[in-house]
C-alpha cells in the first residue's frame, strides 16, 4: 500500500468543511451511497469537492445481498450513477439483508449460512459487480442471535463467496469482536483464519454494552475500544497494511477527535512493511 491511501474516516455532513480543509497524509473518506442518492443539491456538491482531492470509498448499507430475492435494480442503478460520478477507490456492501418484497428495514439482518444461501448471495454479488463494472468488497456482519441451521462457518462462507465471485473482503474488526462476544467464539481464531489475499479494507468502530442483556451492540457511536485496537494490530501484523476506516455514524464527535483515532491507525499502517 502506498502512503497516499492509509487510514480514512467516515464522511459526515457536519464535517464537510473540516474534511475539505484537512491536509493529513494518506487520508481518505468513506460515505454511505444511500445518503447521496439525490438528483442534485449541496450533498453531491460537497462530495464532488472532496472526491477531487481525496480517495473516496462508497460503503453501501442497503443493497440487501443476503435477501431471498435479487437486489433491487433501481437501487443498483442509483449506486451505479454514484460510482460513475465519483470513481471511488473502494466499493463495499454487507453480508446481510434489509430489503424484502419492497419494504426496507434499516438494519443489517442475519440469515442461516446454508449452501443455498451461499449460491444465492454469490449470484447477487455477481449481479452487483456486473452492473457496477468493478470488484466490490463484502463486510462481515455484527451478530446478536444464536441461529442454528448453518452449513458453513462465517469465515468459510466469506472465503467461498470471495472464491466464487472474485469479490474482496472488508473485515470489520469491531464486528468480529462484537459477534465473538455475543455468540461465544474466539475473535483471534476468526481473524487468523481469514484469507489474507482477499482482504481489501478494514473497519474499526466503537461498540456499547446492551442495557438489558449480556450483548455488545455495534453502535458506531463511541471511540474504538482498546481490545479492538489489539485485534487490529494482530490482523495487520499477519496480513500487512490495508486501507483502514475509523467508522462513526452516531454521537458524531468533532472532526479532530475522529482524526486522533485515525492518526493511530495511520501510524500503525506505516510501521508495517509494504505488502507487494
Amino acid at each position: 500500500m502506498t502512503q497516499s491511501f492509509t487510514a480514512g474516516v467516515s464522511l459526515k455532513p457536519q464535517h464537510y468543511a473540516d474534511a475539505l480543509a484537512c491536509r493529513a497524509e494518506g487520508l481518505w473518506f468513506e460515505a454511505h451511497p444511500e445518503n447521496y442518492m439525490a438528483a442534485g443539491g449541496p450533498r453531491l456538491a460537497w462530495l464532488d469537492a472532496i472526491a477531487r482531492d481525496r480517495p473516496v470509498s462508497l460503503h453501501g448499507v442497503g443493497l440487501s445481498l443476503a435477501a431471498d430475492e435479487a437486489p433491487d435494480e433501481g437501487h443498483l442503478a442509483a449506486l451505479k450513477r454514484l460510482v460513475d460520478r465519483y470513481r471511488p477507490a473502494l466499493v463495499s456492501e454487507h453480508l446481510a439483508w434489509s430489503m424484502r418484497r419492497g419494504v426496507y428495514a434499516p438494519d443489517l439482518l442475519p440469515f442461516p449460512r446454508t449452501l443455498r444461501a451461499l449460491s444465492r448471495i454469490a449470484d447477487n454479488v455477481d449481479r452487483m459487480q456486473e452492473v457496477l463494472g468493478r470488484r466490490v468488497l463484502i463486510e462481515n456482519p455484527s451478530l446478536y442471535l444464536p441461529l442454528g441451521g448453518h452449513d458453513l462457518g462465517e469465515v468459510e462462507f466469506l472465503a467461498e463467496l470471495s472464491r466464487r465471485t472474485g469479490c474482496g473482503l472488508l473485515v470489520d474488526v469491531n464486528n468480529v469482536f462484537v459477534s465473538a462476544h455475543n455468540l461465544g467464539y474466539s475473535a483471534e481464531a476468526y481473524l487468523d483464519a481469514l484469507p489474507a489475499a482477499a482482504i481489501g479494507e478494514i473497519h474499526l468502530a466503537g461498540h456499547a454494552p446492551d442495557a438489558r442483556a449480556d450483548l455488545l451492540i455495534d453502535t458506531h457511536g463511541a471511540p474504538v475500544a482498546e481490545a479492538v485496537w489489539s485485534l487490529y494490530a494482530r490482523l495487520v501484523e499477519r496480513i500487512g497494511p490495508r486501507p483502514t476506516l475509523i467508522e462513526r455514524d452516531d454521537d458524531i464527535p468533532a472532526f479532530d477527535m475522529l482524526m486522533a483515532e485515525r492518526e493511530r491507525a495511520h501510524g500503525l499502517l506505516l510501521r508495517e512493511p509494504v505488502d507487494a
Partner: protein
Amino acid sequence: MRDAFHERFLAAVAGDAAALAPWCAPNAAEAGLSVYRNTVGKGCADALAAQFPTVERVVGPAWLAAAATAHATACPPRTASLLAYGEAFPTWLADFPPAADMPYLAGLAQLDWLWTCAHLAADARPLAPEAAAALSPAAFSTHALVLHPATRFADFEDGTPSLWRALQSPDAPPKTLELNDAPEGLLLVRPGLDIRHQLIGPGELMFLAASSAGASLLEAAMAALAAEPGLDLSTAFAGLVAAGAFTALRKHP
C-alpha cells in the same frame, strides 16, 4: 423446514419470537431480537427526525421519536435510501391523535417536506432576469416559464408559512405558537446550493401553479390576476424571476 427464514425473521422482529423456532429457541432469541427491533426502529425514527426539524423543534425529540416509530409501523420505508423517507408523514400526522391539540403541526411538517424536496432536487441555472426583461408583450402568448427543479410552493388557509419561517432560527424561537387567520403562501427556491424562502400571495401562487401546469406566460398572468385582482403583475413576475423560481423560457405550445 429450513425455508421461509426471511419471512419468519421479520415476524419475530415484529414480536412473534416463536416464528424463529426452527433456528433459535424463543427464550434464546429474545435479547438478540430486541437489538434488531431497536435498530430498525431507531433507523426510521432518526431518518424522520432529520426530515422534520421544525416539527422536532416544536414537540421535542422524545415526542417526535414516538410519533416517528408509530408512523414507521404504518408506513415503513420502501427504499434503502432514507433521504426521501417521510413523504406520507405530514398527512399521517394530521390524523395522529396526540397531535390533535397542535393544529399547526401537520402544516409545519408539510413545509419541512417541501424543504427536503428542494434540498435534493436537480441542479439548474436560474433564468436570468435580463432574459425575462427582454421579452416583448407579443411573446407572452408564445412562451412559457419552466420552473427550476428545486422550486416548491404551497398555500395555506392560515399563517402556517409565517410560523414555519419564525421557527427556522433555532436561536430565537417564537414566544408563542399561534397561527394568524389570514391565508398565506410560501415559496422555496434553491437557485444555487442554499435554500431560500419567502411569503407569497395568492396571485404569485397561481402564477407558479399555472406555469408548473404548462400554461403560457399570458395564461399564467391571467390566472394570477383572477386569483388576486389588485396584483402588480410586472413586479410580482420580476420578483419570482429574481428569486430564482424559474430556470428557462420555452416556446408555447
